[in-house]
């Protein structure tokens, strides 16, 4: 026992000597930006935010303080207040359920700017230091849909499938406006190229569940879907596609390395432009928009490189062409002429833009022949069930 103790003490001494070199201080500006993330880098959703946070801080020479695995509870308020205590002039949270607790912190620290991704309340709250942000990711999904539609056309032309068999499978997380807006824009993109395209959606009931996503993709493939896409955060669906040799459009980043034979393209939100804009404004004491929507133009909506080995020939050029159309307004993703609901073309729709417990529809969102998504509020509110898309199940909460 004594020998052991002596050994341990010796080890301790050694480490205390070795310890003298460390220094965690970083140079640069003394402005600090705090970040609150629901999970850590093992979730592709949070990883996308973490990378953007680090990049934005690096570009601005700001010190980031990152807190991961913060629940959507009072813990979020505690984390935000703690970051403010540490002298952060800007605090950001990445998950929908963080919003109320960020508002609580914002009320308490009027001199600190609080920003929250995907939230819905800032535009009605009237708090000068609380802000929401999102991006018009439906435009990115529409572009990815164009690539999918061209792939379907290629399969039809080569005789692999008939036009009627051009069925897309989609793995969604929840039956919720954000996901509905996403799969509908993807479908409309595909349909703009391949008019006979149809789609089936299978929900998993989780933002991240590799097994469930893989199973959902396999189920869709067995149901004769010839192309798969997803709005869920794991590698489940891409892996199932690679195993079955079915072309895939993924989300949140390229899956080319793991799925070289099936990956076509992926869309994602790049949060760097927003964070740079908001942190810079906070540093200079300038006003930050209460509700900010990133677009293709701001660089917030991004497509990965197209995998030309899988994509149909001419995809790269076609996407550039459509992108230019979206930018100059000649193409609208939710053009009411492009879709019907229950066989009817819509001319009017009231959406619940100002969230309330009774879901009161409050804003007319169809005008000038298209559905104005992400214009009255950055977070998506398109929740129409359009013809051509079949929901195999529904999952809530």
């Amino acid at each position, binding site marked *: 026992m004594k020998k052991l103790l002596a050994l*341990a003490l010796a*080890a*301790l001494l050694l*480490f*205390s000597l*070795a*310890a003298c*070199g*460390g220094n*965690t201080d970083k140079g640069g500006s003394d402005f600090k930006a705090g970040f609150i993330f629901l999970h*850590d*880098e*093992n979730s592709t959703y949070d990883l996308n935010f973490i990378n953007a946070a680090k990049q934005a801080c690096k570009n601005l020479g700001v010190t980031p*303080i*990152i*807190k*991961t*695995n913060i*629940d*959507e*509870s*009072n813990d979020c308020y*505690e984390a935000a*207040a*703690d970051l403010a*205590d540490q002298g952060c002039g800007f605090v950001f949270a990445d998950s*929908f*359920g963080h*919003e*109320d*607790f960020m508002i*609580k912190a914002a009320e308490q620290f009027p001199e600190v700017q609080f920003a929250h991704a995907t939230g*819905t309340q800032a535009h009605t709250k009237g708090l000068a230091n609380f802000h929401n942000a999102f991006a018009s990711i439906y435009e990115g999904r529409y572009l990815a849909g164009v690539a999918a539609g061209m792939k379907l056309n290629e399969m039809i032309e080569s005789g692999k499938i008939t036009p009627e068999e051009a069925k897309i499978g989609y793995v969604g997380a*929840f*039956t*919720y*406006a954000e996901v509905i807006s996403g799969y509908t824009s993807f479908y409309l993109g595909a349909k703009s190229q391949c008019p006979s395209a149809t789609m089936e959606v299978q929900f998993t009931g989780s933002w991240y569940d590799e097994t469930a996503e893989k199973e959902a993709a396999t189920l869709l493939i067995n149901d004769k879907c010839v192309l798969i896409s997803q709005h869920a955060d794991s590698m489940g669906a891409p892996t199932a596609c690679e195993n079955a040799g079915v072309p895939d459009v993924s989300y949140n980043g390229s899956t080319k390395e793991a799925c070289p034979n099936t990956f076509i393209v992926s869309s994602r939100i790049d949060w760097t432009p927003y964070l740079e804009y908001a942190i810079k404004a906070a540093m200079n004491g300038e006003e930050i928009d209460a509700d900010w929507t990133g677009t293709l133009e701001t660089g917030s909506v991004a497509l990965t490189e197209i995998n030309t080995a899988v994509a149909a020939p001419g995809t790269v050029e076609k996407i550039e062409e459509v992108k230019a159309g979206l930018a100059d307004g000649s193409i609208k993703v939710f053009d009411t002429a492009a879709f019907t609901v229950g066989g009817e073309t819509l001319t009017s729709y009231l959406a*619940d833009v100002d*969230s*309330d*417990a009774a*879901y009161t529809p409050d804003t007319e969102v169809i005008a000038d022949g298209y559905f104005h998504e992400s214009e009255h509020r950055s977070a998506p*509110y398109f*929740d129409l069930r359009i013809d051509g898309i079949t929901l195999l199940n529904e999952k*809530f*909460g």
Partner: protein
Amino acid sequence: MNKEKANREQLVHISKRAALPGWKSWLIRVLSVVASLILCAVIIVLFTGDNPFQIYATMIKGAVGTPRRIWGLLQNVAMLLCVSLAVTPAFKMRFWNIGAEGQVLMGGLATASCMILFGDKLPPAVLLAVVVVASIVAGAVWAVIPAVFKAIWNTNETLFTLMMNYIAMQIVAYFVYIWSVPKGSGKIGVINATTQAGWLPALGKHGYLLNILIVAALTVFMYIYLRFSKHGYELTVVGESENTARYIGINVKKVIIRTMLLSGALCGVAGLLLVSGTDHTITRDTAAGRGFTAIMVSWLAKFNPLYMVLTSLLIVFMQKGATEISTVFGLNDSFSDIITGIIIFFIIGSEFFINYTVKFRSRKEVAAQ
């Protein structure tokens, strides 16, 4: 058995100790913590190259570095302690209630339901009374169901209470969907944010004082209940031996049901404190695993409510410190979990050395035989 083999088996000899004096058992505990810190230091240096002393200093700073952090620490200790107090009488009766997570959730759901449904219908004081009663009843009902089955049909309470957790989670998920804002988002958000109807009043700057005081009172109550009350004596006897209990005229069924009612009611209080006193909303994660961590807190403290203050403090301290490590050093949370795991493993392991003595026979001795 040949002689050589018999000798080899006797090289290590483990035997039960007579009770150690208090200072000696505490010395063993302290030494085990020191040993665990040394092992953690080795692991930190090997795998991260960071300075272990800086890491330990960061842990302490993360847990108690600012007044806000101290309040947050105390609040979390109070919540964990409340659930631990709840499971303890059942454990002492050898009724393995691992359904505290679900019982807390049901208490919390009852609280949230009353806040949502009666928020603008009842006067504040009445609403608060309704919220308190509803949460306690909900927790008690969820706990008494497996107790009745155990008492009458002798079903396995471990499986039964465990399964009740999942049912509770799904019920909460269902109502969270029904009441979610915006529609389908699966989040209720802060309930009655403007009127604060049904919220426990906030005492002190950080608003956690009332929670802490309530749990402190419950701790004293539970200590007296287990140690000095007739109920406490009866449940201990049932735990030691049901036959003895029956022989001396204790109604075993009644004791099982009564104890689980108490256990569930306290879980309901924990749900109340979490929803009405802290989060003001409910999600499937409101209990945040405390129903399971409480089992460890209760066991480590040998079912003594006063020791449980220390064990829950230890665990919350480590959790808070671990979070700060991942922030400051950019290490993944899993690494902090490894450190916490090692320290807790050593503490649990120290109980072995307190209860047993290990003798190594020297080679000479063996040879002499």
